[in-house]
């Protein structure tokens, strides 16, 4: 079954374990940690409340980054469902970075190539290291139900 990320900002405690897990999984040159593909953004909702939002590539079906890339450096891995960036095909034009509407592809300053989430070969490490359940990796149907019908979910929880 195909899986999807299910992200719940209200559960995120901004510990950034996911960012570390990602950076170490994608080590760049000489084993240095790479740039994390997941980003925890903390914003002030009001005077008393902070919201922590995990941001990660959602592998758009019609991905703007892949559409704009003139060398086809962004290709689907059909086994994992990830849209993967291939350094070898990339000519560093920066078009993909400007094209992604969510800011989920950007350059790693060490390698000077764009990086994006590749779903860790189908087994996302950020999810494994998230202690609070803010990012989970669920079968498509389940993630979908949670996403579009939060009220049903909420009722089921209070039962």
């Amino acid at each position, binding site marked *: 079954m195909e899986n999807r990320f299910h992200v719940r*900002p209200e559960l995120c405690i901004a510990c950034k374990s996911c960012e570390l897990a990602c950076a170490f999984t994608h080590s760049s040159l000489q084993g240095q940690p790479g740039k994390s593909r997941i980003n925890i953004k903390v914003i002030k909702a009001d005077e008393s409340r902070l919201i922590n939002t995990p*941001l990660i590539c959602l592998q758009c079906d019609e991905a703007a980054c892949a559409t704009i*890339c003139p060398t086809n450096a962004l290709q689907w891995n059909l086994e994992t469902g990830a849209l993967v960036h291939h350094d070898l095909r990339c000519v560093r034009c920066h078009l993909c970075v400007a094209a992604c*509407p969510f800011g989920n592809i950007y350059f790693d300053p060490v390698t000077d190539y764009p990086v994006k989430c590749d779903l860790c070969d189908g087994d996302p490490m950020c999810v494994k290291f998230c202690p609070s359940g803010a990012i989970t990796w669920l079968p498509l149907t389940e993630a979908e139900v949670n996403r579009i019908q939060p009220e049903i979910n909420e009722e089921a929880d209070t039962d």
Partner: protein
Amino acid sequence: MVTLTINGKQIKAPAGEMLLETIRRQDIEIPALCHHAAVEPFGACRLCTVEITRQSWDGWKNYVTSCLFPVEEGLIVQTHSSEVTRIRCTILDLLLASSPNSRVIQDLASEYGILASSYVVDAAGDDCILCGLCTRVCSELGMNAIATVERGRLKKVDTPFSEPSASCIGCTICAQVCPTGHIRFEERGLKRKIWYKEFKLIACSECGRSLKLTPEMKQYFSERQQLPEDYLEQCADCKQKQTVDRFNRIIDRSEEVI
């Protein structure tokens, strides 16, 4: 899938794949200066030469440029035999004579034990090895702004008449793929200069930082790749902030529903 032997090891590779790709997948390092996966292989530098033979060849061997040679069933490949090394050394010796100041060539030559060229060194030789990767990328992507001009010793890569070219969109892709770093460009703030031509860079519509795109690139590639131009207006940081806001508005709204 075909089965072949590389340096004594049996390997499977997808039919039609070029030998160079198969070799690299085995983590075997061979130099390949004029190769880039974004464009068709061309076989200009000859450094990726390897030795091939077959059981049926009775000891006969052949030398082929692996970037241009598709894998075949039963092929027996040596990537570093003494003859292959000799061929590569000759090429590097020549390259070192014509581009004596190139760090890339110096380093590669010294890896093969060549510290000084045995040919007459062209002290004024620039770093361009005339591999044509820049011109191929520029023309395969449809811009066609640069080409090799002149002949013989004067041959070089340039725009027509060494003048700013109307076809150049200032993408710097030629410079990005050049294996020796011969093509230079200047970039300061929102200004970029390449091939005698000055470009303004697009600033993020939110924060003003450079998107590292010229308006010419925006127009050209959005049309070529069929993505509306207004996708290409903001930097990743600003878009992340907007995504967070949007995300949280959606969540707030769904809480209201409850």
